[in-house]
């Protein structure tokens, strides 16, 4: 980076001169959209590029990265100043390859983030990656909303300021004083032989006070938060029933809650020990006990029956011909697969997944063959890496000198991993995995290859779920790696996504996104699927947008979608091979097995 400093100086100059210009511009237009003049990407800076970069950033990067702070991955503001452009493109497209090629920076990042690997984005073009990077340079495009409460935003940063330290020590002082007072009271009580403070009465009174204050506080909280609760206006057909059930349970438990808590604390207050009053020896009353066993039993029966009705209704087998979409979960994102014109989803297998070319592992013969080539090259890589271990060890040892601190520690760790045989056994394991995978793919391609059906050819893969309002839809849920859970709170729908065990959830959306926005009076609102089962470091940021729209809007959207595998597969029909030699493994066919 020879010209780095001159470049940054130039940037600085441009920025300052641009600033004045922008100031004028913004006062004219009302918003300052572009914060940068030139971009390290080499592309001309334009609002359009940044906008598309922002969209890509939100769908691909946001689950692990933010612009201004480290989350699962590093903060991305200024990343174009920290790294070379070519390196960034390589890294974003396939960081595994870069790491495998022995790139020191790539390995260092992997280690710094505790061995959390970044996802592969092989489908992004150079221009797309550059647009994302331009977005990181510029920041969000949205017209800056005038923040009148800038001070409030900064509030928490001052948590450790001087005032708070003073307050902190003051509160400790108060605390110590209280303890001293208590000690004194205790000593006075001991000396005089009389209780100075009538603790029993005080505590009895506090019990009553707690009851009253607590109830008021609880109701106050309910009053300010009730507008956020999902207790009515469900956006799905079954949601109304659940909301009703919820309300009934609320009323019953609320009633019991108030009555029992009131009784508890009132008794505590009323029956506090008083001089000369003896407790009533009252060991049991069979009739009373039968009554308060029977009443809960009856109430619970009502709740059980209501619950069973709703549960069975929700779990009814979907009618024949219900639209199906596949929702695919992986660390840390979602994708959706539409069946295309034939209305049938093609098969899939985890063995056919390639982060580069077939992220969902859809069973398409030409893709399978592509993956075979990829796997063969993987094999070659691992074999070479294994053979090159002694040499690598020698290199590492010879470059040991002069390293200090963290660098030395990492370096020693690398040496240790080779010397202990850990690295070699990892390569062996990877070789075995790849060989098994190759064997399984070849097996699935042999014979009449039942895994590869024509239904897969017109499947459409998308980063956004579109649903038709008032049409039932079955979500077929499939996981790539660990258990996820698809929570769609406005639809009162949730189902776990379990690797190896397909699950599904059927519901009917009844409110369009637009309708919901009007209901909420919030034009920014969108439905989402979010992950609700801990699935790794970026679990908290795993979502996909759902758009509920009218049939016409849906058709229009669908018309814009291209069948993911269509054109390339044109010349290659599924191999009409001779008699089957072996059958495919049952696990590879599991894509379509219904759960119940």
């Amino acid at each position: 980076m020879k010209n780095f400093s001159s470049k940054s100086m130039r940037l600085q100059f441009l920025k300052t001169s641009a600033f004045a210009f922008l100031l004028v511009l913004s006062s004219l237009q009302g918003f300052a959209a572009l914060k940068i003049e030139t971009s390290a990407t080499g592309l001309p800076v334009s609002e359009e590029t940044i906008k598309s970069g922002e969209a890509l950033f939100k769908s691909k990067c946001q689950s692990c990265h933010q612009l201004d702070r480290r989350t699962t991955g590093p903060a991305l503001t200024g990343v174009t100043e920290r790294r070379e452009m070519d390196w960034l493109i390589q890294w974003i497209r396939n960081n595994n390859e870069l790491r495998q090629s022995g790139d020191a920076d790539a390995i260092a990042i992997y280690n710094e983030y505790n061995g959390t690997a970044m996802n592969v984005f092989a489908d992004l073009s150079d221009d797309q990656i550059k647009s994302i990077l331009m977005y990181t340079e510029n920041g969000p495009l949205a017209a800056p909303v005038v923040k009148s409460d800038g001070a409030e935003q900064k509030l928490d940063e001052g948590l450790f300021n001087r005032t708070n330290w003073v307050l902190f020590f003051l509160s400790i002082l108060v605390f110590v004083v209280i303890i001293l007072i208590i000690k004194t009271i205790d000593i006075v009580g001991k000396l005089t032989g009389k209780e100075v403070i009538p603790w029993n009465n005080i505590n009895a009174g506090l019990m009553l006070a707690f009851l009253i204050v607590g109830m008021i506080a609880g109701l106050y909280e309910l009053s300010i938060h009730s507008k956020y609760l999902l207790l009515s206006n469900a956006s799905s057909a079954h949601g109304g029933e659940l909301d009703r059930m919820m309300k009934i349970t609320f009323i019953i438990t609320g009633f019991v809650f108030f009555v029992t808590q009131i009784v508890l604390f009132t008794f505590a207050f009323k029956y506090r020990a008083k001089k000369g009053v003896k407790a009533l020896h009252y060991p049991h009353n069979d009739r009373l006990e039968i009554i308060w066993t029977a009443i809960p039993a009856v109430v619970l029966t009502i709740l059980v029956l209501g619950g069973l009705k709703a549960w069975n209704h929700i779990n009814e087998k979907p009618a024949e011909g219900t639209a199906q979409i596949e929702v695919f979960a992986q660390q840390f994102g979602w994708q959706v697969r539409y069946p295309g014109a034939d209305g049938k989803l093609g098969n899939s297998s985890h063995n056919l997944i390639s982060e580069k070319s077939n992220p969902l592992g859809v069973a398409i013969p030409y893709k399978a063959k592509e993956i075979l080539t990829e796997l063969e090259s993987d094999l070659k890589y691992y074999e070479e890496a294994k053979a090159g271990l002694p040499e690598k060890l020698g290199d590492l040892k010879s470059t040991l000198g002069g390293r200090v601190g963290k660098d030395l520690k990492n370096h020693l760790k690398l040496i240790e991993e080779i010397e202990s045989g850990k690295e070699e056994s990892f390569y062996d394991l990877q070789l075995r995995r790849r060989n098994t995978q190759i064997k399984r793919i070849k097996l699935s391609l042999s014979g009449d290859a039942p895994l590869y059906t024509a239904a897969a050819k017109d499947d459409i893969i998308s980063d956004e779920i579109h649903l038709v309002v008032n049409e039932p839809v079955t979500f077929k849920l499939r996981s790539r790696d660990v258990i996820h859970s698809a929570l769609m709170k406005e639809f009162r729908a949730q189902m776990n996504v379990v690797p190896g065990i397909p699950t599904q959830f059927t519901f009917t959306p009844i409110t369009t996104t637009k309708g919901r926005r009007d209901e909420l009076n919030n034009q920014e609102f969108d439905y989402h699927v979010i992950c609700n089962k801990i699935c790794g470091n970026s679990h908290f940021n795993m979502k996909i947008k759902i758009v509920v729209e009218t049939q016409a809007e849906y058709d229009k959207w669908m018309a814009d979608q291209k069948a993911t595998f269509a054109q390339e597969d044109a010349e290659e029909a599924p191999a009409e091979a001779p008699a089957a030699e072996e059958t495919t493994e049952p696990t590879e066919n599991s894509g379509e097995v219904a759960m119940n």
Partner: protein
Amino acid sequence: MSNDHGHHKETFISKYVFSMDHKMISKQFLITGIIMGVMGVAMSILFRLQLAWPDTSFPILNWLFGDQWAPEGRLDSGFYMGLVTIHGTIMVFYVLTAGLSGTFSNLLIPLQVGARDMASPFMNMLSYWFFFLSSVVLMSSMFVSTGPASGGWTIYPPLSALAKAMPGSGLGMTLWLIAIILFIVSALLGGINYISTVLNMRTKGMSMNRMPLTIWAFLLTAILGLLSFPVLLGGGLLLMFDRLAGTSFYLSDIFLGGGIGALEQSGGSPILFQHLFWFLGHPEVYIIIMPALGITSEVIAVNSRKPIFGYTAMVISLIGIAVLSFLVWGHHMFITGMNPFLGTVFLIMTLIIAVPSAVKTFNYLATLWKGSIRFTNGMMFAIGLVSFFITGGLTGLFLGNAALDISLHDTYFVVAHFHLVMGSSAIFGMMAGIYHWFPRMFGRTMNKTLGYIHFWLTFISAYMVFFPMHFQGLAGVPRRYYTFDILPEFAPWLDVNVFITLAAILGGVAQIIFLWNFFSSIFAGEKSSQNPWGANTLEWTSPVEHIHGNWPGEIPTVYRWPYDYSLPDSESDFIPQNVPDEGHSEEIHVTPVNPVSSDAKKEPEESNAMFFTMVKNWFGLGRA
């Protein structure tokens, strides 16, 4: 008969370290439990900082966890999950199972049934040391380079099975599993002991229906543990095989990113693990709460100066809860895609378990009715327990209902529910026990004024922490999230999170008062009288001085049930169990002692002596 275990020489090690005396072992469990509890609570406060102020840099976090886990003073998202996981593990197993059950079963079972020690003092000692070892292994996982286990305390595979799925699933997870396996060994050694002591070593006259409710609770808890912990042991071992030996019990059809690729494992089921886990996991909830309920029954009766209302109903509902607790585990799994029919079965079973729980609550209320309530520290915590048990128990009716669970599963509603019904409740039961039996353990009383402050701060802050979480859950806010930037609709809850964190800090500070009170009272507390609360049970007849065998002379004989408080014809408002009947005060509902069983146990201490001889012969430990 004179005590034949008192005269051998005790060294520091045999008295305080490798002690076989149940009273000392109970203190060891308690103090270890308190230390673990301090760490568990501290962790919760640290990760709550992240939830309340996600953008703020806290130098203290960086100072504690270094650049690896708290760069720039903000928790790393994986380490945040690690803290959540270890917090859950510590509180569930180490504090509320071992700390609670280990302490009070050990202290009270021999003393309240009238036995010289546990059936097997040696196994009892092993139980503690396995627990200790387990604690050390668990805490050591905080220091490994890939961080502690961080897939949640429920450690669902495949996340926990695949070392590359998240950093915490590396060595940290292996250590977690080893710790839990050691823990289970400890729980089983203890449980066998508790059961055999209660069943075989009761003193003359102590029939089953004269046992204090504490003993009933400890007995049923031990049975639950004995039947359910081995299942988790099995599940944990299989997970270990999946992790270390390449088996596929829980793994199937997995493609892992980060250059790992497709795995070979096929045919396993991740759901199988959840079945095995919750087959322990649900009874575990009752393993935690039942001893607390037992303690509460005793403390409420003593301090209301009234017999516990409906003794028989209390016992039957304990048994009912124990049996039903084995039939409800599936309510943790309603939305795993298991057959909806199974969902209906678990829905029915789960809601049925509310009936015995309701009976217990009503009986507590009836015990307070027309009592003469003395607000000792123990009593206040017992009342607090009842309040939490109601609040948390009622929300169980939402979560046990499969249909409602669809939207509430894994939201903050669940967090609120179990932190109230088994977290706060059980902690309050434990506190009630500590304040109540402190005089019996250490011969001194804790400072009651500090106790009141401790109670009120803890009680109020616990409600302030967990009550708002119901609302968060009803708004669909998921648990185990590091930040809530994901959806704009979660933004209003940031204020609530700040509120909760401040309340949690208040609650944490309150525990410092407790710690000060506890440890200073051990050495400098006010000397206690023999029976400071005027209680009927046998432990208050045994001398406070540390002696083997509990009673210097003969073991007292029991003539009555433990709840003869405020008898109308009696002058004193309590009649201890060892006071002979004068004929007229006979309780109708207490059936006479079964002569056969009491004959068989004429000299319960003999079996004890025999065991000591056996131990001596086996291990040559040289008991004189």
